[in-house]
């Protein structure tokens, strides 16, 4: 029987807890009004004080919904970083106390590695193939844009990343320019469905190697909209769908361009992997923006053309969640890779 692992994620806005049984999710809970109703109370908005109010109800709910008792848990895993220190501390303090009280091992997990390891979460009702090592993963979210070479569960190398704004931020800030509410990424995705993706053209970054930049695109969209609004105050309203489709297509094109380049580079020399011929054929996406329909479509189409196997995580495991922390904890549990009570959180990425 695989062990039950409790995962706790508090790196940014959401307080989440999850119980996995090996790689199978038994519960995955994020603080919301409903959880607080179960426990009594209301949910506050952001940051560490909110986490403090959320953490106990969320963990109670995760254990209850997994239909286990807390003494069945084999270990507790928590997000060590990167993230907001005050927020991380709430999760790590709880995890440490819980590990002490229950006399079970404590496991630290890197948030960015966990996004990638979410691909190994399995659903018994919906068996899907898993990526095989080594593979390339594009992790895209509101705060991150990284191309990672994944050699093994915890042997990963960042090949390229954004030098300014994240891809998710490009979506959110473009939405803001169009007068849509924050975070506007999912709204752009929805509106883009009926729009013409090649109607408007925006500047593409010219960044060396495998790094990304989205800051120039944001400025280009901003000035374009401002100039058009001068000529026609109803410009956004009249062209909203085409604008959304064109912006989305540009972001996706930028993302896919470097991803393709990364796979080619790995096939060639720079990151050539011994005993693997010269082909990396498994390519994955992870993070909140991997829920974007145009990115998913572009990945599948490129995979078809290039002969890749494409992997897209289940929707609920794309954004920040605790199931990915718990499953990363499970893989560390198998290695006996435990941490001490003295583990400290970190704000910035370690790799």
């Amino acid at each position, binding site marked *: 029987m695989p062990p039950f692992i409790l995962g706790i994620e508090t790196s*940014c806005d959401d307080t989440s807890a999850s119980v996995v049984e090996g790689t199978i999710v038994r519960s995955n809970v994020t603080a919301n009004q409903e959880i607080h109703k179960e426990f009594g109370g209301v949910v506050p*908005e*952001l*940051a*560490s*004080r*909110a986490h403090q109010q959320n953490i106990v109800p969320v963990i109670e709910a995760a254990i209850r919904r997994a239909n286990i008792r807390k003494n069945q848990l084999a270990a507790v895993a928590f997000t060590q970083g*990167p*993230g*907001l*220190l*005050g927020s991380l501390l709430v999760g790590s303090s709880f995890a440490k106390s819980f590990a002490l009280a229950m006399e079970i091992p404590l496991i630290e997990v890197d948030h960015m590695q966990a996004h990638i390891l979410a691909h190994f979460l399995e659903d018994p009702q919906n068996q899907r193939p898993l990526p095989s090592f080594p593979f390339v993963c594009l992790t895209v*979210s*509101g*705060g991150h844009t990284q191309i990672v070479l994944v050699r093994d569960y915890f042997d990963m190398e960042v090949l390229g990343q*954004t*030098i*300014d*704004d*994240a891809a*998710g*931020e490009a979506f*959110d*800030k473009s939405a*803001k*320019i169009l007068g849509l509410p*924050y975070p506007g990424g999912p709204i752009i995705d929805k509106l883009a469905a009926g729009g013409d993706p090649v109607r408007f053209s925006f500047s593409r970054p010219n960044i060396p190697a495998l790094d990304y930049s989205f*800051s120039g695109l*944001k*400025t280009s969209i*901003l*000035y374009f909209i401002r100039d058009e609004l001068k000529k026609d105050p109803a410009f956004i309203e009249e062209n909203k769908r085409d604008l959304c489709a064109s912006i989305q297509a540009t972001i996706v094109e930028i993302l896919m361009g470097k991803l393709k380049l990364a796979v080619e580079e790995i096939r060639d020399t720079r990151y050539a992997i011994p005993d693997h011929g010269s082909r990396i054929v498994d390519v994955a996406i992870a993070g909140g923006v991997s829920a974007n329909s145009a990115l998913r479509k572009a990945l599948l189409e490129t995979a078809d053309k290039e002969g890749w196997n494409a992997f897209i995580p289940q929707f609920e495991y794309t954004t920040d969640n605790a199931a990915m922390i718990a499953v990363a904890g499970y893989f560390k549990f198998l290695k006996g890779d435990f941490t001490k009570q003295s583990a400290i959180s970190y*704000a*910035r990425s370690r790799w």
Partner: protein
Amino acid sequence: MVNEYSVKSEIGLPEIARKLLASYPDKRIFALYGTMGAGKTTFIKAICRELGVEDEALSPTFSIINEYHTHKQIPVYHFDFYRINKLEEVYDIGYEEYLFSGNYCLLEWPELIEELLPAETVKVSITGEQERIIAF
């Protein structure tokens, strides 16, 4: 006294960053005012390089606070209050721990927390489009 510098491209930023730091050798909190796309993050990148930061300075819009380290392992904090809806959220982050740490704090969208800015904050504005005017 207000210093005003105009820059036509990113190439001019390191020099202005040096002048900014040299003009306020005892100050640690710098608030950057400017509309979206004005170049706040880009100028902060230049300031960070002058401070000897080894990491790439990135937009903290999502993370709210980015922490970088100089080659002497001294932290530099990069804030972005764009996502802040209420001052209460800034209290919740524990902003005092950072702003009163004695380490460099570089702030984007400070107008959203104007009343929490310490009196010794250096205000830097970035305006203009083709040619940016940086004033402090």
